[in-house]
């Protein structure tokens, strides 16, 4: 018998962090949802503008809230499943503070406009490196614990944890390969279509391996614990795991249906997404059936209530997802609020409710006491459920409404709602309801936090919980004949080594295209690299997070070609580092707003529109960007940016960086003059000029090809 201590301190630390960041992240979400109702809520403060805060919301809830939940759940259950303390307290705490530091740096940099615009990977390169380091430390700590465990069997939950650690590492590295131009500014090595593919290969699997697999692990540990009965079928859970692992990885392209990605890649995404229903529902059934014969318990125990709704939500969204990846459905749902509703079923239901279910179970045990108030917990449950409904239903409705309006034609074949704004005005009420739903949900969370805090303060907390278990004998020869211990000792090491190898290979393999960037995308001769001014403008477009509301991808539907113009070709994006296709149209698509295109606007219009959107388009919910006219364009970075882009294959001639700014000034001067002629007091060296230049470039080349070909 060896006596040892479970480390509850680290668990508590992560718990506190998760609840804290959870509330923050959700509040940010609520705030941005309100900005859609009152566009100038941010009082023209750049740091609070919608475009900059939205990524903060997603990052905060995913990596700060869910992330910390994963860690406290994992640090609690792994220690007990392995009958061992975490491998190293030092690593545990480095992991904790490292992760919190990453979050804080996100909280600072995102409002400042430092973003890569790649969804769920917005953070810039220095932070990316930090994430990798912290994650590796976490991995070592986890495999170390598995290594020195006192329980021979690896419970299925541990397998889900292992999957998470390995895969997230690989995904993060593959997707974040970028060439730094300046400190806090980098360009991804891939361009356009390729960038899109990598991004959504990552994006989907981030959902899979950050929001799903670890939580399934938690479910398989905490649900049976809370229900005090073993999981319905342990065999099924094992099958569930391996099936999931072997097919999850390739469903990503379903985020790119009807885009310029190759047709077969899209179909691949669809097929694999459909196949995913099987394992996902296997998991849901296993979770729900665990409670068979315990429904009386569910009725009185809030913990189980939360978990039941969570598992159900998991089942719903894992069914809805594959449905949305059917091309016909996706044609309707994509770019609309349907997607937002879908992800929030998962986030609020599956992740949120499971997290709080676990917390309500765990805190009383950490503090050796009973829950402060069952009544409050139930209140939280009901308000939360109500919140989810108020959040999701209106958005589904909004999605359908807007989508159908976009595709509506009059009898004589014209768009019924040619003005995008009409379709927006239609759904504002739903947005209001959504904000209400969000408010309810957050209220619930706050009540929960209070309840947990009271519970904690009434109990006595043991930082190091004493436990004892016999060590695994070194020279134990079981009846199976195989030498257990050897494997036990060697394999986890091998696993962790392998994980590193994988990470390295993943990295190396990724460097390859940097050199053989030759890509067989049909290049369009007229498509030219961005001029320095346009480039700077594009980076402003990125900084302000315009991509959050404006797509740049015209799908090959009549309704879209009628509205926006020629549908997008893969060849147009060969110089786009990163791609800016976007995944949501709160505003209209911008792929064809450039000069020469049908319905293109003069510079003056863009100038006015950016200063005060409502003046050019009444009822617009776009915020105004006064600071673009106030602040000067930082041209010192031009040279570095040109260099960086050349290194990833954009054909700027050698030495162009030295003269780039001259071209920049020239082009800026022309635009400024034009504006001044029309009586607008504007300086050539202001940011707004650059962004106008960029907007006028969008789709312009394609227009040229058409004129040329005529």
């Amino acid at each position, binding site marked *: 018998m060896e*006596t040892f201590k479970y480390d509850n301190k680290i668990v508590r630390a992560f718990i506190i962090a998760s609840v804290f960041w959870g509330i923050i992240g959700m509040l940010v979400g609520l705030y941005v949802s309100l900005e859609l109702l009152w566009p100038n809520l941010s009082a023209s403060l750049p740091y609070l503008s919608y475009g900059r805060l939205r990524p903060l919301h997603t990052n905060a809830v995913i990596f700060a809230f869910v992330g910390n939940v994963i860690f406290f759940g994992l640090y609690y259950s792994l220690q*007990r499943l392995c009958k061992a303390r975490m491998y190293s307290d030092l690593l545990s705490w480095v992991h904790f503070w490292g992760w919190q530091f990453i979050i804080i740096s996100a909280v600072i940099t995102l409002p400042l406009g430092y973003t890569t615009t790649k969804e769920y990977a917005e953070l810039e390169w220095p932070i990316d490196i930090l994430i990798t380091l912290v994650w590796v430390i976490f991995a070592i700590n986890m495999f170390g614990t598995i290594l020195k465990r006192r*329980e021979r*069997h*690896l*419970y299925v939950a541990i*397998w889900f944890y*292992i999957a998470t650690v*390995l895969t997230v590492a*690989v995904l993060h590295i*593959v997707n974040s390969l970028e060439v730094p131009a300046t400190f806090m500014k980098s360009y991804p090595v*891939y361009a356009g*279509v*390729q960038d899109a*593919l*990598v991004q959504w290969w990552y994006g989907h699997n981030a959902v899979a391996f950050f929001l799903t697999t670890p939580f399934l692990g938690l479910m398989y*540990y905490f649900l049976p614990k*809370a229900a*005090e*009965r*073993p999981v319905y079928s*342990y*065999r099924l859970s094992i099958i569930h795991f*391996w099936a999931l*692992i*072997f097919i999850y*990885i*390739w469903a990503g392209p379903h985020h790119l249906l009807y885009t310029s990605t*190759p047709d077969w*890649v899209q179909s691949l995404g669809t097929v694999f997404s459909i196949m995913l229903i099987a394992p996902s529902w296997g998991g849901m059934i296993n979770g729900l059936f665990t409670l068979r014969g315990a429904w009386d318990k569910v009725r009185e125990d809030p*913990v189980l209530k939360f978990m039941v709704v969570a598992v159900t939500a998991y089942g719903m969204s894992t069914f809805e997802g594959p449905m949305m990846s059917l091309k016909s459905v996706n044609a309707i749902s994509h770019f609309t609020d349907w997607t937002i509703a879908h992800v929030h079923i998962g986030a609020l239901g599956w992740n949120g409710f499971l997290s709080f279910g676990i917390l309500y*179970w765990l805190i*009383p*045990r950490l503090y050796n*006491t*009973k*829950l402060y108030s069952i009544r409050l917990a139930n209140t939280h449950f009901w308000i939360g459920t109500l919140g989810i409904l108020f959040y999701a239903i209106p958005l589904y409705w909004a999605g359908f409404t807007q989508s159908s309006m976009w595709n509506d034609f009059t009898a004589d074949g014209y768009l019924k709602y040619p003005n995008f704004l009409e379709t927006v005005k239609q759904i504002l009420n739903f947005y209001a309801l959504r904000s209400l739903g969000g408010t309810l949900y957050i209220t619930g969370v706050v009540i929960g936090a209070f309840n947990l805090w009271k519970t904690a303060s009434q109990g006595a907390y*043991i930082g190091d919980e*004493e*436990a*004892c*278990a016999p060590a695994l004998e070194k020279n134990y020869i*079981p009846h*199976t004949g*195989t030498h*257990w211990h050897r*494997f*036990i000792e060697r*394999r986890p090491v091998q*696993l962790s080594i*392998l994980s590193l190898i*994988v990470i390295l*290979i*993943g990295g190396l*393999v990724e460097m*390859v*295209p940097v050199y*053989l960037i*030759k*890509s067989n995308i049909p290049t369009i001769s007229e498509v030219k690299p961005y001029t320095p001014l346009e480039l700077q403008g594009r980076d402003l477009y990125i900084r302000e997070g315009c991509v959050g509301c404006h797509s740049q991808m015209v799908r090959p539907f009549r309704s879209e070609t009628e509205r926006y113009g020629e549908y997008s070709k893969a060849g147009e994006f060969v110089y786009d580092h990163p791609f800016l296709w976007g995944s949501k149209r709160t505003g209209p698509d911008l792929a064809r707003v450039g000069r020469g295109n049908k319905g293109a606007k003069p510079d003056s219009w863009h100038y006015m529109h950016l200063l005060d959107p409502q003046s050019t388009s009444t009822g617009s919910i776009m915020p105004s960007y006064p600071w673009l006219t106030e602040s000067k364009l930082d041209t010192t970075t031009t040279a570095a940016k040109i260099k960086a882009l050349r290194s990833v294959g954009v054909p700027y001639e050698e030495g162009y960086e030295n003269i780039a700014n001259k071209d920049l000034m020239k082009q800026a001067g022309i635009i400024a003059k034009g504006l001044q002629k029309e009586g607008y007091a504007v300086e050539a060296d202001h940011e707004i000029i650059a962004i106008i230049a960029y907007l006028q470039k969008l789709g312009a080349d394609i227009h040229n090809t058409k004129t040329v070909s005529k």
Partner: protein
Amino acid sequence: MSVIIILILVSILVASVFLLAFFWSVKTGQFDDTESPAVRILYNNNSVSNETKPSDTASNSKDPSKTQS
């Protein structure tokens, strides 16, 4: 679309790592007994201070392992 090759290679690589893991776990009999592990996790057998069970009211009366050390 050279990038797809890389993505596929990486995917297969990851999958094969898990295949290895699968071999290891079968070899070491991880999946031999598919019943007791599910039960074993329910009770912190070897925890010196047996965990209290605030949520279950039924067993409190009978269960003497409530006394905290």
